[in-house]
């Protein structure tokens, strides 16, 4: 009976194992931690492999002894039970030996940790702010000083969630605005959040750090290889926690400088508040903003989610007086997930998204909100 069962088990295990192998063919990199592209990630990888192997070896010894005993000392083989049940000497040995092994692990762990936490002498600083459910980046110094943008899940990925995930590249790991960083520089990140706790994590950089509202954390990285590195928010932050990716594009320094210059110009040129905006332009622009900034909560069809996020379609606010509407959008609703957008969106975007909200779906108010109106409310201090 037992034989039969164990044969069956062996067969089943074999099937599962081969099944796993074929399933994972071409995905060998999905079995282990990445070695990454930074000095930190490499040291962490080595540490990981060291402790993994120590555990595997201890496992082989312990389970080996156990299986040996299970095979040899079974009653059906006529084994007669011994009666010993104590040995102070052994107890001491197997207290001391594991302790020494642990010391052996703790030494490299300590030095790696000290290395990781040393944020001094960095070449540039980027401030990262987590919002429900997007990341904001601000370059505090260096070539891109002053550049600031919001990065959220790309529209392609978002559309594929309820359609066909396989049809898009980098499903859920793609954003509208990538963070661009120079390779070979020590980059210092300052991390915080505006609403709830998020965590900024790109596996290939080998670091993960929480972004905590009201406090600033820091971490550093030095990317060795140019390339695109993808990660995700790693701390549960509400409904769309799974849809808050991070994309880092590492480029050579010259390319970074070009990008920075471009980015600065884009910022200035496009947002001339005084440009004459037509309703259609605003509406189109607003749709774009809505579909990246607001869709996560208020949904594509403007219906929100019953009892979690209110509908904009038919909302008394979005169809009522412009002032109250603008107040909600600019200042948010403290204590709820509705954030203040006055620091996240510029005047044009706010005007556009409000115009969109007031005219999309069944909200045919016909009103439109001009960037100048927003600027006026802001009190003429454009950010």
């Amino acid at each position: 009976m037992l034989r039969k069962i164990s044969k069956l088990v062996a067969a089943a295990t074999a099937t599962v194992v081969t099944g796993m192998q074929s399933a994972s063919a071409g995905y060998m990199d999905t079995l282990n931690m990445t070695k990454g592209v930074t000095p930190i990630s490499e040291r962490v990888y080595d540490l990981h492999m060291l402790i993994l192997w120590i555990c595997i070896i201890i496992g082989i010894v312990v389970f080996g002894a156990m299986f040996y005993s299970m095979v040899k000392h079974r009653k059906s083989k006529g084994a007669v039970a011994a009666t010993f049940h104590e040995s102070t000497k052994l107890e001491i040995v197997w207290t001391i030996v594991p302790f020494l092994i642990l010391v052996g692990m703790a030494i490299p762990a300590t030095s790696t940790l000290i290395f990781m936490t040393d944020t001094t002498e960095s070449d540039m600083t980027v401030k990262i702010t987590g919002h429900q459910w997007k990341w904001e980046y601000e370059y505090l110094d260096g070539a891109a000083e002053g550049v600031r943008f919001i990065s959220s899940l790309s529209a392609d990925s978002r559309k594929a969630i309820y359609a066909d995930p396989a049809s898009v590249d980098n499903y859920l790991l793609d954003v509208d605005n990538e963070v661009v960083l120079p390779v070979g520089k020590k980059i210092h990140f300052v991390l915080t959040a505006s609403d709830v706790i998020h965590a900024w994590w790109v596996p290939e950089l080998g670091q993960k750090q929480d972004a905590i509202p009201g406090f600033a954390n820091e971490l550093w990285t030095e990317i060795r290889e140019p390339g695109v590195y993808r990660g995700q928010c790693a701390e549960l932050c509400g409904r769309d926690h799974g849809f808050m990716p991070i994309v880092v594009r590492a480029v050579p320094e010259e390319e970074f400088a070009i990008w920075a210059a471009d980015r600065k110009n884009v910022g200035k040129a496009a947002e001339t508040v005084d440009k004459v905006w037509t309703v259609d332009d605003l509406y189109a622009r607003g749709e774009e903003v809505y579909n990246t900034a607001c869709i996560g909560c208020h949904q594509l069809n403007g219906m929100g989610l019953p009892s979690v996020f209110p509908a904009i379609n038919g909302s008394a606010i979005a169809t009522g007086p412009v002032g109250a509407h603008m107040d909600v959008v600019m200042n948010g609703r403290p204590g709820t997930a509705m954030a203040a957008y006055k620091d996240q969106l510029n005047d044009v975007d706010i005007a556009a998204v409000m115009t969109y909200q007031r005219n999309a779906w069944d909200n045919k108010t016909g009103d439109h909100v001009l960037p100048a109106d927003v600027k006026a409310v802001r009190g003429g201090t454009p950010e």
Partner: protein
Amino acid sequence: MAHIHPSGDYYVPHGTKWPIIGSIGLATAAAGFSSYLNGSNAGFTVMFGGLLIITYMMYRWFGQVIQESEDGYYNDQVDVSFRMGMGWFIFSEVMFFAAFFGALFYARALSLPWLLGEGDGLLTNIHLWPLFDEGWPSNGPADFGGDFQTIPAWGLPALNTLILLASGVTVTLAHWALKGDSRQGLILWLAATVILGYVFVYLQATEYTHAYNELNLTMESGIYGSTFFMLTGFHGFHVTMGATMLLVILVRAIKGHFTREKHFAFEGVAWYWHFVDVVWLGLFIFVYWI
């Protein structure tokens, strides 16, 4: 109703309906209060109903235990079990307060200094709260609740300390009287303890009114107000409970309960009273004084 076995070495009570009634009461009170917090006024009535059920349950359950005790059903083993139960219950209360004291120490020793830019908090201060520069007592960088004043330790709180310490003495005197078979002394000193207890609560209440009306010190006053009212509030609640339990003991003493050998209920309440006393000392030192 006495489903117990008076003789023999073991005491095993039989079926009891008080626990299930207690659970119904607790759940009713919890559901009522929850709905009230969610904005339903009816919830308040429901909560009140639940509290009534709990009070009734306690009255009857303790009544039964007292009856059985007076009838001599309990042997020494039961007495020891009761003592252990009370002792460990008090320990669990200590740990409950430990959470709030932990919050206080953390805020004073770590989070507030970080917000002010000390130690690891440099970036926090520079990037997020550059204007924040006032330490304990603080209502935080956003100045929650507006400017406020604190209650000086050497006024009312010091008086309250004296009162509680004195009540610790009187309850011990009552115990000695009980052990010395002096019923009159027992009643007298117990009554004094109960009065001191309620006076403490009364003074605490005046202090709260003063804080709210004149000092602008409220629950909303940032971390100072939070820890202040959480600690003193839960302590005040425990004093009220303790004084009420002492009152029950007083009534029983007047009725002639307790003997010089057997008076666990008295001792249990006295322990509880000392616990409340010690917590107050912690409060006086860490909340009011330093």
